[in-house]
């Protein structure tokens, strides 16, 4: 049984989309700007009205309360968002010190004001914030979009460990062909609202 199963999903100009991702599998999606990659991820996280069905381990999206669904099927948005003063205020489940180190972030930064962190630091903290809620599925919208080479590799390796340890399913939107080659087991192109498989490893 796949971890995440998407059937006949339609949201605005995207779809119908059918896609299954197994436990511990990483699927990449590429596509031009405006092709609807973000819309697809938002619909899977149930942030936009949509038709069709999404299941997590055979649990229908609509059978769970929306917050519980979104904690399990977690969307990491491309531009990290912050609403409190300090970085640490946003971590209600605490944070794993090993992960902070693994991403090359200063541990003291949990006490920093959000404004003091660079865009790249914020993006990595946002990833940690999402991982701390222990999602079974990660919907990643260009998670390394603002990062340098070293940080990108650190993020990739952390996500790789997480995927294998937790048997998580990853749906990863990326524009970087090199990255897709490193992380994807299957890759798709989203074009004109349709998903086509373009490669398998």
């Amino acid at each position, binding site marked *: 049984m796949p971890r995440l199963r998407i059937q006949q999903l339609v949201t605005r100009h995207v779809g119908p989309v059918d896609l299954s991702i197994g436990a511990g599998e990483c699927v990449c999606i590429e596509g031009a700007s405006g092709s609807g990659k973000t819309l697809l991820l938002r619909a899977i*996280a149930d942030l936009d009205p949509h038709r069709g069905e999404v299941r997590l381990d055979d649990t229908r999206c609509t059978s769970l309360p929306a917050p519980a669904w979104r904690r399990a099927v*977690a969307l*990491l*948005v491309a531009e990290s968002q*912050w609403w409190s003063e300090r970085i640490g205020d946003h971590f209600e489940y605490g944070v794993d010190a090993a992960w902070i180190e693994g991403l090359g972030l200063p541990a003291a930064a949990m006490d920093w004001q959000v404004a003091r962190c660079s865009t790249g630091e914020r993006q990595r903290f946002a990833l940690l914030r999402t991982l701390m809620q222990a999602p079974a599925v990660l919907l990643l919208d260009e998670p390394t979009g603002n990062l340098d080479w070293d940080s990108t590799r650190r993020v990739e390796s952390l996500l790789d460990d997480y995927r294998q340890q937790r048997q998580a399913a990853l749906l990863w939107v990326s524009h970087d062909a090199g990255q897709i080659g490193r992380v994807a087991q299957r890759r798709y192109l989203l074009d004109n609202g349709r998903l086509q498989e373009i490669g398998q490893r």
Partner: protein
Amino acid sequence: MNVLALSPSDLAIAALLILALAGLSRRLLIGVERPLLVSAVRSTVQLFLIGLVLKVLFESAQPLWVALLAAVMLAVAGREVMVRQKRRFVGGWGFGVGTLSMFVSSFTVTLLALLLVIGTDPWYAPQYAIPLLGMVLGNTMNGISLGLDRLTQDAAQGRTIIEARLALGQDWRRAISDSRREAMRVGMIPIINAMSAAGIVSLPGMMTGQILAGTPPVEAVKYQILVMFLIAGGTGFGTMVAVSLGARRLFDERQRLRLDRLHLPAN
């Protein structure tokens, strides 16, 4: 107790102020002369009309007529709340949120005052019911329109943040809590300020009117305090109800932020 009746020429002298202001606005190209004159004429006509209505009402004192006038006041206030919104709710909610909240708060507060505090006989005595309702309603209307406007503007501008919080598994109440709190505060600040400044900076209009009409100052002050508290209660509870209803309406049954339930701003 003798009231110095105002003659039409007395009012005409006061009206010269408005004309002078309009002239200056035109001269300096400020561009408010038209709305200024229109609103001055409107308030003159409206006040004379309500004066006539009240005269008839006071003489007949039929509960049905009191209720009808109250309903008209509520509907007009509801419309006013709606048109003051930059992004108002689509459909019946645009009128409904504000009107329902005003009904709940203003009518309850006014009834409370009539039945428990003033104890008029009959309880709907229009001399008390209508002016009290008018004052509570007018202020509640301000609070609610400020609060709702702030809420919807905040939600529209803070969309990415609210949705990021939803994506982290927060429920809708938490995701919008900051905007909601801010909107309630904004709605209540005017009446809090008015209470703080009352008597020192400003002599409230109702009390001034009573004193000019010959009521002993201490009696007028007591009524003013009563009215202030009623207004604060009406505004506060009304704003809370309206902002809560509005915040709920911004999310659907799957707790998605639905900005498509708001009209786009006109400009």
